[in-house]
Structure formats: C-alpha cells, structure tokens
C-alpha cells in the first residue's frame, strides 16, 4: 500500500478533477452567459444517448461478452422495457423488472 499522504493526495486530485468535470460546461456557459443555439440543438440528444449507453451494456454485457438469451438480466430488462412502453410509473417498471429477475434466476 502506498503511503497515507500519497493516498490522500490522489483522493484530492481525483476530487478536484471530478469537480472540474462536473462544473465544466455549467461554468463555461455561465461565463459567456448563454448556451449557443447549435450547442443547444446537440444537447437535446444527450438524455436519449446517455441513458441508452448507461442502461443497455448493464443488461446485455457480462464479463466482456454478450449474455445468452436465457440470461435473467436480459429477460428482466426486456420485460421491464416492454412495461415502460405501457406505463410511466417508475415503481411498476422496477417492480416488474426485479420480480422477473428474481423469478428467472430462481428457475434457471
């Protein structure tokens, strides 16, 4: 294990860097006091692109390979996705997804 002071220094560097990342564009657009129109057009796609990139690999990839069609997480994710088409209720979607995950895991 590296020395205590170096651990703290590393934590400090990560903390400052992460704060800078989090604040990057909030600070930049505050500085110029506006969000350029072209940029705003791009920003409209951030939620869709990011949410898909956040969720999908967690469902279809495990240990560096695509999961099998019988994989509980894939089945649960697909059924939860289908539920999301029918209802907006977050609790229902989560309950269905977790319920299917547990049932399929128990059966498999």
């Amino acid at each position, binding site marked *: *294990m*590296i020395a205590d002071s*170096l*651990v703290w220094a*590393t*934590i*400090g*560097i*990560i*903390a400052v*860097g*992460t*704060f800078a*990342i*989090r*604040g*990057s564009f*909030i600070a*930049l*657009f*505050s500085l110029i006091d506006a*969000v350029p129109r072209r*940029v*705003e*057009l*791009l*920003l*409209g*796609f*951030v*939620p*869709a*692109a*990011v*949410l*898909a*990139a*956040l*969720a999908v*690999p*967690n*469902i*279809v*990839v495990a240990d*560096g390979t*695509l999961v099998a069609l019988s994989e509980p997480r894939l089945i*649960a994710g697909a059924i*939860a*996705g289908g539920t*999301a088409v029918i209802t*907006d209720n*977050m*609790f229902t*979607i*989560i309950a269905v*997804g*977790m319920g299917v*995950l*547990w049932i399929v*895991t128990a059966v498999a």
Partner: protein
Amino acid sequence: MVNSSRTTELRQGVRDVSPIIIGIVPFGLIAGAAGVEAGLSAAQTMGLSIFVFAGASQLAAIELFGQDAGIGLIAITALIINARMMMYSASLAPHVLEFRRRLKLLVTYVLTDQAYALSIARYEQAELGDGQKAWYYLGVALTLWVVWQVTTAIGIMIGAAVPPALQLEFAVPLVFLAILGKSINTTSRQVAAVVGAVVAVLWALLEMQYDLGLLLGGTAGVLAGAVWMLRGPGEQHR
C-alpha cells in the same frame, strides 16, 4: 404559493429517486467494504465518498490502490471514468444558468448519473421555474448524497451485508431504462439512443482498459441524432 410549489418539487424529487435508492444501497456498501479490504483507512475510504462522490470511479481507484498502482494511473483512470459527466454538465447548463453562484457550485458537487437523468427528464416534462428546478434537483441529488455517505460508512463498519443473490444493483439500469422510454419521443432521439447503446456495448465487449464507453457512446449518439434530424428523412429541421 411559490414556496409551496418548490416544496412540492423537492418532495417529487425525493419520491422519484426512491426506486434508485434500492439499487444504490448495495453499491454504497461495497464502496465502503472494498475500501478497507483494499487496505485504505476508514477515513480515506470515507474521504473518497465525500470528496469524489462518484461510485464507479471510487471502486476503480480502490481496486488500483489495492494493486499498489502509481498515483498518476489511479487519478487518470478515475477521471476518465468521470469524464462522461461533462455531458451532464452541458445538458443541465441551460437550466441552471440563472441560479445563484453558490447554488451552481452545490449543483456541480452533487452531480451524478442519477441526479442528471431524473432531473433532465423532469425539466423536459414539466414547465418549471428556476426555483422549482433547483429544488427538484436537490431533492434527488441530496437524497443520493446522504444515502451514499451512510451506506459507505456502514460498509466500512460491517462490510457489504446485502446478499448478492438479490441483485439489487440491477434497479439502477432499470431506472435508466424507464426514463429512456420517456425521452425517446422523436425518431432522431431514437437514433441517438440506438447509436449510444451500440457504441457503449461495443466498447464494453472490447473490454478496453479505460472505461470510456459512456462518454464515447453518449457522444456518438448525440452526433447521430443531430445528423439524423438535419439530414434524415421524415423530420424537418428548423
């Protein structure tokens, strides 16, 4: 009246984040337990949660501390994992531009995947004033912050006690999936989602050393969506 609607948004934020909490609890416990197991002190492990407050990067840093990696490698790895939050910063910026400076600093410090995802979905769905936007965001983000600190501390003290068989962490991608369902309401946004997912999956399959899948997937998705909107069939651009 204004105050009451702000309180309403605060409560709405807390309510909306509650399913995510289910998935965050085991994650926080692991962040605590893994830190002390890797040889960090309780204070250092807690320090990561308090000062960095970004789970995936904390776990990567802990893993590397345990392997006696150099501080440059540890810091760079953690920051690359966190680079995706630049996209959140940009996406939230139009909504927080008029906030007071101190509030902007607080918003910045507690920015996470989950706080971003829930807030941007809420802002797109409802017509909210600045105060309401701020309180909704804080309802989500500060709840996450408190849960993260408490579960890290518990993980340090008693280890990760949640049975892994429950797979509670799966609640987190489910929440993202649920919010995604609401946000892909145009063809070009669907294109953005598909491209974002495919690129992120490909990166995960390649098992690259650096966890850039989210940033690359997100960027590729955004560009694809924009190109589709400007050039593609069916949707006219303004």
